[in-house]
């Protein structure tokens, strides 16, 4: 197991280098750069001299290979550089938003898991009854409804019915847990619903499959208590594909909630991501892509470990 963990960590290095190289060159293929955007954005005019000065300041006048080598050398020293747009260190830009994104991802995952597992199990147990149909309608509607649309509906509902809006500024949970929850619960519900819909369907189909397995029949034939069969034998085994979905969605939530964050005005990594791309903030975009890639790799790794715990037959 230890060998497997070390191997997985070592594999992260070439993956990250590949991601880094890919994003570095992809960003530069896109027309327009940060200097053009910054200097010509609103007034529609900037002198050539001014643009050349700024380009030199950001090092964008140097050959591409040199820019890449310098950036990679920085990465090797864990120096991600500074945001080209704000001038602040990349670390501080990410640190500011990381907690909010993590908290939202955890809350949305909790909403999803709390809805999906009971609903999926019930639907499987009551297959082809009205309960199953109701759960299926609920989950199909969740998959078909974009989170941002549900977010807008939630906001308008709160505004029109209760004349109330969630707070617009993030308050950490240790400062004011109530205010924190008042802000984050709505996007968590909007995102968690869609997320739960996917997980519900996965739980239902995995449960149906497992419930038809020989070992379940054997357990029932032995006269084992039904509740025990379901929780210890069926659910635990059915959780493997559900865990994959939950893990991947969690990783996605860490940087992918672009529109939902805009709708709820959340200062998270998703919004930072889209702003950095829109501003052609090369250094920040590169760092964010690396961060999201690292999150995916780590989440995948943790899921592999959980597979082994859920199914003792799996060995690394």
């Amino acid at each position: 197991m230890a060998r497997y963990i070390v191997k997985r960590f070592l594999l992260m290095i070439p993956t990250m280098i590949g991601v880094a190289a890919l994003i570095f060159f992809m960003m530069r293929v896109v027309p327009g750069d940060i200097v053009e955007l910054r200097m010509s954005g609103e007034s529609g005019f900037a002198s050539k001299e001014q643009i050349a000065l700024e380009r030199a300041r950001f090092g964008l006048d140097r050959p591409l290979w040199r820019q890449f080598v310098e950036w990679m050398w920085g990465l090797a020293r864990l120096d991600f550089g500074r945001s080209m747009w704000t001038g602040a260190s990349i670390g501080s830009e990410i640190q500011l938003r990381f907690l909010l994104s993590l908290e939202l991802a955890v809350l949305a995952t909790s909403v999803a898991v709390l809805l999906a597992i009971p609903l999926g199990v019930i639907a499987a147990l009551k297959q082809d009854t009205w309960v199953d149909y109701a759960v299926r309608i609920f989950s199909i509607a969740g998959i078909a409804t974009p989170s941002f649309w549900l977010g807008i509906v939630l906001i308008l509902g709160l505004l029109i019915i209760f004349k109330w809006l969630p707070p617009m500024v993030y308050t950490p949970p240790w400062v004011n847990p109530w205010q924190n929850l008042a802000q984050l619960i709505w996007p968590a519900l909007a995102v968690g619903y869609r997320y739960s819909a996917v997980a519900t369907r996965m739980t239902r189909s995995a449960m149906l499959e497992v419930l038809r397995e020989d070992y379940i029949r054997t357990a029932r034939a032995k006269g084992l208590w039904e509740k025990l069969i379901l929780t210890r034998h069926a659910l635990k085994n059915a959780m493997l594909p559900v865990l994959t979905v939950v893990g991947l969605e969690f990783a996605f939530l860490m940087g992918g909630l672009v529109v939902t964050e805009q709708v709820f005005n959340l200062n998270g990594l998703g919004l930072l991501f889209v702003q950095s791309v829109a501003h052609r903030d090369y250094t920040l975009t590169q760092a964010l892509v690396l961060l999201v890639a690292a999150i995916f790799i780590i989440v995948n790794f943790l899921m592999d470990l959980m597979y082994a715990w859920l199914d003792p037959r799996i060995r690394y």
Partner: protein
Amino acid sequence: MRHANRWWLLSVAAVAFMTLVGAAGSALAQDKPRYGGELQFVVPSEPPSYDAHREETFGVTHPMSPHYNTLLRVDPFDKTGTKPVADLAESWTIAKDGMVYTFKLRQGVKFHDGTPMTSRDVKASYDKIIFPPPGVGSSRKSAYRAVEVVEAPDAQTIRFRLKWPESSFLLNLASPWNWIYKADILAKDMRWYEKNVMGTGPFLFVEHVKGSHWVGKKNPDYWDKGKPYLDGYRATFISSSSAQVAAVRGERAHIQFRGFAPADRDSLVSALGNKITVQESPWDCILMVAMNHSKKPFDDKRVRRALSLALDRYEGSKALSKIAIVKEVAGIQVPGTPWATPPDELAKLAGYGRDINASRAEAKRLLKEAGVEGLSFTFKNRGIPQPYEPTGIWLIDQWRQVGITAKQEIIEASAYHPMLKRGDFEVAMDFQCGFIVEPDLDLPRFLSDSDANYGKSSDKVLDDLFVKQARATDPEERKKYLRAFEKRLLDEEVHTFMTLQWHRIIPHSSKVKGWTVTPSHYLNNMLDTVWLSE
């Protein structure tokens, strides 16, 4: 009986008098600024750095102007946004030949760290703007080409010596970007202000949480005694327009100072009724059509003129102003401002006539004469919904009325400028936003040597007219040159042409008082005159 009538009349008169007095008193009480409260506003953009001398976005001026003063400012109650008034300067004199401007500074002005502000600070700030050292960016350096030197003969006097007289110079010193920085700080680090705040303004800096908000609190030692009225302000950065509207509608924000779309205004008014006050103004931003003079047939002024003649600007204004942030029919200056062309004169220019059928018949004749009947081309437009997309669709429809087929190609916003600069277009949407309506600031882009002359027109007559108007010290003489410039640009040569002026719509909480909309969203953000009625 007669007695009774007289008493009745007297009673009515007394009641009416008391009502009038009461109403006047109540109106006066309403207009008397109230102290206290925190103004909450939304900013759709965020400051890239804290240095206004180098930045170009309202994301800097909206949250940060309250920390600073400028030498002069634009009168915060002037709806045209063109009247310079004193800020740090108390008074000024202009030499008869217009070559020397001398300003007396206020006494007792202090930076937020308690140190006094003197002419040394003003000189250091203007030297940074006009003569930046190598490696230091200054976005408005070219606006002060006329300045030869800035002098500080004594602690309370600052003097600008010019190379040539410039009629717009005084107004240019009221630029909302020219914050006065502290000389000692600049002497140590010219770029200190990119990441720090230290001004003399009505509000002290409290915090900036990136991506979230900016907070300022009242400066108790502000030099303008009795101001500011607010205890503080909180600017929240919200990029999504639906979230901005929701913030105002949910009374989480009093105002957003840039502007909303007509539909947003209507939804806010219908939801909040008299809790919302709407202020509107022509906006110092305009969409123009650039025609590439190096590509045929746009080197032919008959074709360019036909493109402008095809537009029914007056009907377009009625239709588009319902769905987009455009409205006024304008020439080279914002309507209602001092140098704008009166509507009757404007109607004499190509494409501004009231008889659209005659204009379009003329357009067809010109196209035929130029041998390009059934002309078709690609029209490049910027990938931003407001107001580019509706205006682009309108243009295509108008051109179709004279037999022109234009295929619209939308270019992603960030790639748009490089495309214009490369000249990689036949006909494209061009745009300009100014911070003060002033010909010297607005017109240089049309000159032959300008980097922003994307159509690459070359016209020495036009260049000469620009210089003449800039140096004309008599307003009437200047107007004459400006009219000639406009006629040359939009009628005789049609190097480019205007679509419609943007229209600024600010629906804000009725609690917000002491703020007046101007044509520029870069102006009037110091908040020293703003107060909350409850």
